[in-house]
């Protein structure tokens, strides 16, 4: 397995504009190389739990290699939407979808889609750090082994690379055989990121990755996201608006299942178009 993270080049500017529709202006902050193509495209995409429509007819493009934050009050459908992208909602028996959700030009919910192969490309990190009760090494190597890597040398290489990318290598390199549950919460969460990276995904879905962590650990995760920006398409669900404005290039605001507003982060936070968005970001409700 080989990682395909492009070296981040801070001086260069992306050749393409990155926007496919007029409202999606390129972010003011630093642009990324080869980024800005629609990576995940939703068209009239709805998610139901039984009769309840949790996400209502969303149409949006998520741009490659940028960080997109999803915000909104709890129960607004933001997590549901995120989990739909790698079909984790399949675990809920009563859940079904309508409309289309495309990834790389193929329908995620298509008849011939294999959700297992799909999840390999769309990795996910969960709210609570959830390392397996195995050694640190085995945690990272779990994915590569699953996909057929057996050579010990290659595995070690992948593990080191992934841990380095997740900025955890220096902290754990001497205790790779220890149980991962012995790490601190923040370390566990970075381990989970590393574990996801080891599979070589194109997209990283982060479902409130810092909600269970203290401020210090949160800062490290945010630094990590900044590091990964430009290498992966990142979607992060967060209930913390400061976090969204700190780490993301674009922000989606969901309210009661509707995608109310989707705009470059700076624009959304400084000049929201919609009244509900403004009420939310100014803290009138939460």
């Amino acid at each position, binding site marked *: 397995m080989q990682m395909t993270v492009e070296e981040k080049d801070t001086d260069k500017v992306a050749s393409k504009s990155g926007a496919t529709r007029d409202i999606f202006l390129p972010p003011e902050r630093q642009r990324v190389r080869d980024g800005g*193509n629609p990576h995940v495209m939703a068209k009239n995409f709805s998610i139901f739990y039984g009769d309840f429509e949790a996400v209502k007819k969303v149409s949006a493009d998520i741009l490659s290699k940028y960080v997109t934050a999803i915000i909104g009050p709890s129960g607004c459908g933001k997590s549901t939407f995120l989990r739909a992208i790698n079909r984790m909602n399949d675990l809920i028996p009563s859940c079904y979808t309508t409309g289309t959700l495309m990834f790389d030009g193929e329908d995620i919910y298509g008849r011939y889609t294999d959700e297992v192969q799909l999840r390999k490309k769309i990795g996910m990190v969960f709210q609570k750090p959830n390392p397996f009760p195995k050694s640190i090494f085995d945690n990272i190597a779990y994915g590569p082994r699953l996909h057929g890597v057996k050579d010990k040398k290659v595995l070690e290489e992948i593990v080191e690379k992934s841990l380095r990318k997740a900025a955890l290598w220096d902290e754990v390199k001497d205790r790779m055989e220890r149980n991962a549950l012995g790490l601190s919460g923040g370390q566990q969460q970075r381990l989970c990121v590393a574990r996801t990276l080891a599979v*070589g995904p194109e997209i990283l879905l982060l479902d409130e990755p810092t909600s269970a962590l203290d401020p210090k650990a949160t800062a490290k995760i945010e630094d990590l996201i900044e590091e990964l920006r430009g290498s992966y398409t990142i979607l992060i669900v967060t209930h913390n608006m400061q976090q969204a404005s700190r780490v993301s290039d674009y922000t989606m605001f969901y309210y009661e299942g509707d995608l109310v507003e989707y705009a470059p982060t700076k624009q959304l936070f400084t000049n929201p178009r919609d009244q509900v968005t403004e009420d939310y970001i100014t803290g009138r409700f939460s």
Partner: protein
Amino acid sequence: MAETTLVGGKKSEAFVLSPEKLRRQRIAKFIGEGFLLTVASFVAIVVLFIFYFVAVDAIPFFQQRGFEEFFTSTGWYPADDPGEFGALAIIYGSGMVTIGSALIAVPLGISAAICLSDVLPFSIRQYAKPVIEMLAAIPSVAYGFFALVIFAPLLQNHGGPILMWAWWLIAGPFVLLAVVVAGDLLTSRQTDESRRKTMRTMLTGVLGVIAVVFLYWVGKTLNAIQILSGTNALNVSLILSFMALPTIVSVSEDSLQAVGRELREGSYALGATRAETLVRTVLPAASSGILAAVILGIMRAIGETMVVWMASGNSSHIPDPWYNYLDSIRTLTATIAGDMGEADQVTGSARYHVLFAMGLLLLVFSFISNLVSERIVIRQRKILSGE
């Protein structure tokens, strides 16, 4: 692993399958789940098989002998020619030890369950639970050995004093408690506080003296009893109650735990004592679960073989008088276990099939009790969850 790239528009390694591959994957999944389902259905198949094979060997008996003799006669002479197959006394014996063990195990088990769930601090509970598990783990034949070799001679040689002391120790406190409560209740109409107090003291005193005399007299009567054989219904009932206790305690405790804290706090807030809270509020709410526990415990007692085989005396007659627990009895399970040794020489005879008829009786009984207790538990869960 193939190299994955992120160049816009270019498709990376496919997560979309070809129709051929999809079909293969579906077939594999179907076979896999089919295999799991088959294994999971194995239990159901076994249950059907048990009913079928026991019934198939039981039916010839009823064809040959009809139903009447089996259920109404007490003559049990299977070895005679022609044999008699009246199982009434045996069914009665099974019922007798079951009721006897329930009389001991149910009050004991429920109070132990209440104690575990509401009275004892957590630290003691941690040690009490393994004790109950150990009690459940001891093999039935070890209990049978204890009943036959240790307890039966004790009962035979010192039966009277044992009964007397058991009566004094168990009934004594309850009778005295009843005296106190009766004294209180009988004077509750009296409104004048000081007169009430004197009346209560006097009444309690008089009742207390009567109670003590009563206790002493019953004890002395019990002391005079000579137990002819230590292998009797009392011995078996006692041991069976030990064996039913763990089931009753653990299932009742689950049911008591299922009653939420809110209910208890509501009752305390109204000024009820702990006992009143438990008796008036918690127990009624948990009653159906406790009933299920009792049914399961009784099932254990009625289905138990080794203890009754070893320590019941195995004489198939209805005790005289009918409630005489100091008499020997015989039960269905012990009959099956004891008679098969001779009967399987004569496979096909009524003597062989009658044992399956008894097995069928036990099976049907356990099936019904199980069904009932299951329904009860489901109903309780629904009520408690407010559906």
